[in-house]
């Protein structure tokens, strides 16, 4: 078990190095394009170009360029965006990351709790109107675009009914750091959380219900009933754990891609300066250092999340433990 975990961590490290090489090659070794010009930004002066060329080692071989880039990203952390008046890129991401993490973690907590509750309820009462109603609700959640829902939420809570007793507690758009004001943090984020979670509640509850219904026909579920367990216990103790595999895999991927910038629309609608928004700005300005840094950042999260999911498999399914 410990060996499996160690091996998985080794793989993770290997994959991360591989991704960094790949990202570097895509951005700096694309034939026919001078990386200097792209880093320095459009209409850069010849002096800036010369400075960039020396700083990034573009006059030296590729491995040196790669090493220098990694040094700038992880060691000295002084990768600079020339497009954006010489702003340092890494601190920018480190500043945006807590915002995104807060947004996504809260939403994730909500969608996990709600979708498990909905999925289990629907599976327990399958075929009935509660089941159909919940699954319909899930479908509605999947179908609503998050930017539209966010705008409607803003419209209702920020302007139209802001002065009513119901929504007077809603603060203006923006982020409040958790360390400064926990209550303010919560109030600022609870609506973005719910908005972001709606889509995933829909997907996850439907997936979980389908898996739970499938597991109902397993022989060991009948054994559990023959033991004299209550239907609720059969479903929760024997069914749910078995059905969590797909759920956990999906969760790992979704959580990682959201933390890595996928919550862009929610961040934009609610005025949160998160990683998604940062990526969006970098893309629209063709800010190469920033793009590179955000891509690396989100890759790190996706890979780590996958490693965590694999560890969870070890807990959920004992057969995986001996498999490797």
């Amino acid at each position, binding site marked *: 078990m410990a060996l499996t975990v160690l091996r998985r961590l080794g793989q993770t490290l290997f994959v991360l190095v591989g991704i960094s090489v790949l990202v570097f090659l895509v951005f700096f070794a694309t034939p026919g394009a001078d990386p200097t010009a792209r880093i320095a930004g459009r209409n850069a002066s010849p002096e800036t170009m010369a400075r960039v060329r020396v700083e990034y080692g573009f006059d030296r071989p590729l491995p040196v360029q790669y090493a220098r880039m990694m040094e700038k990203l992880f060691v000295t952390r002084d990768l600079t965006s020339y497009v954006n008046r010489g702003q340092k890129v890494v601190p920018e991401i480190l500043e945006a990351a807590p915002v995104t993490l807060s947004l996504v973690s809260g939403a994730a907590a909500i969608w996990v709790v709600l979708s498990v509750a909905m999925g289990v309820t629907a599976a327990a009462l399958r075929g009935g109107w509660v089941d159909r109603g919940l699954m319909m609700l899930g479908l509605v959640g999947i179908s609503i675009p998050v930017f539209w829902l966010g705008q409607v939420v803003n419209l209702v809570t920020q302007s139209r009914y802001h002065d009513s007793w119901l929504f007077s507690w809603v603060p203006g758009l923006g982020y409040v750091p958790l360390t400064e004001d926990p209550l303010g943090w919560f109030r600022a984020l609870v609506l973005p959380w719910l908005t972001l979670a709606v889509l995933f509640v829909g997907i996850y509850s439907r997936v979980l219900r389908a898996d739970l219904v499938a597991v109902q026909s*397993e*022989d*060991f579920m*009948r*054994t*559990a*009933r*023959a*033991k*004299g*367990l*209550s*239907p609720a*216990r059969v479903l929760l*103790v*024997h069914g749910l*754990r*078995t059905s969590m595999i797909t759920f956990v895999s999906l969760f790992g991927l979704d959580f990682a891609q959201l933390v890595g910038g996928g919550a862009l629309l929610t961040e934009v609608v609610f005025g949160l300066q998160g990683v998604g928004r940062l990526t969006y700005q970098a893309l629209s300005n063709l800010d190469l250092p920033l793009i590179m840094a955000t891509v690396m950042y989100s890759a790190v999260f996706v890979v780590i999340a996958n490693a965590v999911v694999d560890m969870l498999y070890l807990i*959920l*399914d*004992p*057969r995986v433990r*001996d498999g490797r």
Partner: protein
Amino acid sequence: MTGLPDHSPSPLIAAQDLRMTYRVGRGQVLRALDGVSLSVRPGEVLGLVGESGCGKSTLGRCLLRLVQPSAGRVVFDGTDITTLPERRLRPLRQDMQMVFQDSYAALNPRRRIGDLVAEPLRVHPAPGGGRRSRADIAARLAELMDLVGLPQQALARYPHEFSGGQRQRINIARALALSPRLVVADEPVAALDVSIQAQIVNLFMDLRDQLGLTYIFVAHDLAVVRQISTRVAVMYLGAIVELGEADAVLHRPAHPYTAALIAAVPEPVVRTGDLPPPLRGDVPSPIAPPPGCRFHTRCPVVRDRCRVDPPALRTLPDGREAACHYPLVGE
């Protein structure tokens, strides 16, 4: 094997006119069980035999109400369990347990053997009321492992780490955890190697002697049934065609179908009189069973009456029951 315990004439479990129908689409109805009645007294081993699809597994599950029969009654120890609400049925499950055919599928692959076997002990109250203590459960688990011949270390392991025979021992231990009075074994050895089959059947027999269990033993293998049963019920197309003492049914069959089953066993069998040749053709579909005697399409001694007049299960002079107009043993 004779010597039924006559001191307790009241049956432990009895089925009356049990029916199980499934709708199979386009208004068609499959009769998996078509009016089955039987009773099993304490200490008996009732062997339930028949070809695949004859309804023996369905009967086993209906008897324990793992599926809800469409009609009929099952009386367990004086209580009608067919209409009992789930909540009141659960305490009764302590006394009636089942061992399933697929020893691997019957065990949750994600839980340890110890957890799986202990689960019944955790959910059912101790005999004096109240929950069983951890120590009691651990002691009982150790006892059960000894009983079925598995090492104590097995408790900490997972189902996939065992062989088929070992897994069936685990299933038996699980079924016996609460000291049930009735165990329904649904083809418990059909999926095992022949050498392992004998071990498991012997285990069943030892356990019966040690614990005074009552079995309903479902099998399609007559050799297994002959070894373990005191009485035998032969099923064909959802109904019992012959029911009686194992010795009589398996050595002097009254129903042509029983005779054909025995003739199909590739082992030497003591036979009396001439037996009809083995069967030809397939079992008719239970969606559209033949009129008259359900066996007439394949019966080697069929006569005109059999094609129109369905024979009822009736008692023959030697005490067994058979559903045949022209039984092979004298009346």
